[in-house]
């Protein structure tokens, strides 16, 4: 028996002795990210930075992105956030992080030297992690994150397949789009594919047309609760999807299709149109370098209001306010967004840079994507956002319409019901 006790004591000692973390060396900064396709480029850049400055940047990858979010939340709770990380969540969550003192305020660094850093980056990209005066989250106004690239979501069309169906120019209105889809179907080509198994992408598409149908003010009024989802304009948005379904425009199984499968489909020329973000350029290039395609904003339904695509920072990094290496982290991010590094990043990963000067020299197809940035908007720059439970009901309701389970009116009523319930709870 004594042997057993001794054995146990040794084991317990081993647990607590063998596993403490070594103290953090001060010449090293840790960065957590989720972008698998950029990991190799990041590692290369980290090596370059070490040679230039002698500071080691430990870049750790945690993919896929939704698991990354969970890890960040858990790390925040345990107070072990790295020096540089990203918050992949809604702006309200970013606000929570800031209020919890986990994000460094970068306004001063951005504004130094006559706002040199700030002015070198696209304004739309900076707006992603910027909080304006009077924001509803109660956050001190300022810039809290650094965008390292820029993306927007637009519609893509396969030139070869369009030509096969006898379509000479890509559609400029929604009605033309429907007509083109009929022509494609007649020659056995599936008209449209998109990763609408992922709710955010579906939400983006719906939002683009909502802007077109009712304009920005009414949308925000709906978020505030002043307009109901059963309003005729919202019914029009829902009916748009019913129309797409009825005319057979959408590929089979679109509501369970993850974005990477949709990208596969478009690259393998299984559909003529797609809706995706500018990162897809890299994916398509890897899968099918000969793919002949073009980019355009989704064709508007009417001319009452402008159709606004989503565009903003693709990925932003924030600095841990509690980190002892804060200054070094900020310096690294400044280096990462400088023109030379941005050009390298853009060239290797086929993403739009966040640095304005690095725009020269991107591939032609990326240039087409860049054209849409001026007219773009993004939930992160809106003054307020919809409650996540309502947004979920909204997106899933559209999926219900697409599979023919519910009518637009039913979905409108369902979403309004969730909205009423959430409002009555008096959210914090």
């Amino acid at each position, binding site marked *: *028996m004594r*042997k*057993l006790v001794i054995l146990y004591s040794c084991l317990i000692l081993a*647990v*607590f002795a*063998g*596993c*403490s*973390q070594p103290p953090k060396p001060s010449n090293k900064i840790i960065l*957590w990210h989720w972008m*698998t*396709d950029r*990991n190799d480029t990041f590692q290369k850049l980290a090596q370059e930075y070490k040679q230039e400055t002698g500071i080691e940047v430990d870049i*750790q*990858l*945690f*993919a*896929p992105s939704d*698991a990354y979010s*969970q*890890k960040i*939340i*858990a*790390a925040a*709770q*345990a*107070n*072990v956030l790295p020096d540089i990380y990203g918050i992949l969540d809604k702006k309200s969550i970013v606000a929570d992080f800031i209020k919890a003192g986990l994000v460094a305020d970068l306004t001063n660094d951005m504004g130094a030297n006559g706002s040199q850093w700030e002015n070198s980056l696209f304004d739309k990209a900076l707006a992603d992690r910027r909080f304006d005066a009077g924001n509803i989250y109660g956050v001190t106004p300022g810039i809290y994150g650094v965008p390292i690239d820029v993306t927007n979501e637009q519609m893509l069309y396969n030139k070869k397949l369009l030509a096969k169906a006898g379509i000479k120019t890509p559609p400029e209105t929604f009605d033309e789009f429907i007509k083109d889809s009929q022509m494609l179907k007649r020659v056995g080509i599936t008209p449209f594919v998109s990763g609408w198994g992922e709710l955010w992408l579906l939400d983006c598409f719906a939002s683009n047309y909502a802007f077109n149908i009712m304009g920005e003010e009414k949308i925000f009024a709906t978020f505030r609760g002043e307009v109901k989802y059963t309003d005729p304009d919202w019914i029009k948005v829902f009916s748009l999807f019913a129309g797409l379904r009825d005319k057979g425009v959408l590929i089979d199984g679109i509501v369970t299709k993850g974005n*990477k499968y949709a990208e*596969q489909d478009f*690259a*393998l020329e299984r559909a003529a149109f797609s809706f995706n973000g500018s990162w897809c350029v890299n*994916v398509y290039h*890897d*899968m099918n370098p000969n793919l002949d395609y073009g980019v355009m904003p989704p064709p508007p339904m009417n001319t009452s209001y402008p159709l606004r695509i989503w565009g903003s920072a693709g990925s932003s990094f924030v600095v841990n306010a509690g980190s002892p290496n804060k200054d070094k982290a900020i310096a690294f991010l400044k280096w990462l967004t400088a023109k030379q590094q941005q050009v390298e990043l853009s060239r290797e990963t086929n993403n739009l840079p966040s640095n304005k000067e690095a725009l020269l020299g991107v591939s032609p197809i990326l240039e087409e994507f860049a054209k849409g940035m001026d007219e773009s908007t993004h939930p992160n720059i809106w003054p307020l956002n919809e409650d996540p439970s309502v947004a979920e009901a909204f997106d899933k309701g559209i999926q219900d319409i697409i599979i023919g389970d519910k009518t637009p009116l039913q979905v409108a009523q369902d979403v309004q019901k969730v909205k009423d319930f959430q409002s009555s709870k008096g959210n914090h």
Partner: protein
Amino acid sequence: MRVNRYVFWGMTKSTLSHVFLMSVALTCMFPLFWMLRCALMSNATVFVDQALIPHHLNFGNFAIAWTKGNFAVYFLNSVIYTVCVVSGIVLISSLAAFAFSRLKFPGKNIIFYLFVAAMMIPLPGSFVALFVLMTKLHLINTRFGYILCMINVGLSMSILIFKTFFDKMPHDLEDAARIDGCSKIGLWWHVAMPLARPAIAVVVIFNSLSVWNEYILAFLLLGDSRLMPLQRGLMVFQGANSTDYPVLMAGLTMAAIPIIMVYLFMQKNIVKGLSSGAVVG
């Protein structure tokens, strides 16, 4: 006449049985076959070529997966984790099961039912709490922490298996050993464990499978890619190579083969373990 009918019926039954067994077996073998087939093709042909057996066999994908995908590191980690966790579970749960089965102490039944209840109550919502706890114990991002956590995952089931087995074990050998002056721990080590080989086999296969295929806890608790097990590495691999299907398939095939081999080697003992009362009865 009668004999002929008997023979005829016997042969039909035998043929039908074979057809039945074979058709099910084919559906089981198909995925492995498909994975292999895709792994041997190239990215250009894997979606286009409808043939069941590819014309050109491209073995290079396996090499690419092994080197580019850091497979060797992940593979080694998985082996380390599986061996450590399984041996840990076998030791710890057999000790506990022996006590539940043969020894008396206050609170024995309550503790045992706690273990059983734990099998039924999953913990998907406890990730954050677990992460915080592991961080406080400085076990985050360590092999040891992950191993301990995985031992916990398999404890309840293994204790149940061992206890059921020990309950069925005849007492005579033990009584003889005790008369000879064997200590309690000696009884466990020298008498119970050698007899429990079939039960050990069942516990080994159950837990090897769950550790080998595990990735959720690995994701939560391990950050350094040098510590990650195979399935976790495959996630990264998938993200980076979602465009390179054949290499992905090569990686997945390589991940599946070892565990199949473990089962192959332990087959006989597993069945013996199941039939001699480890789970059955």
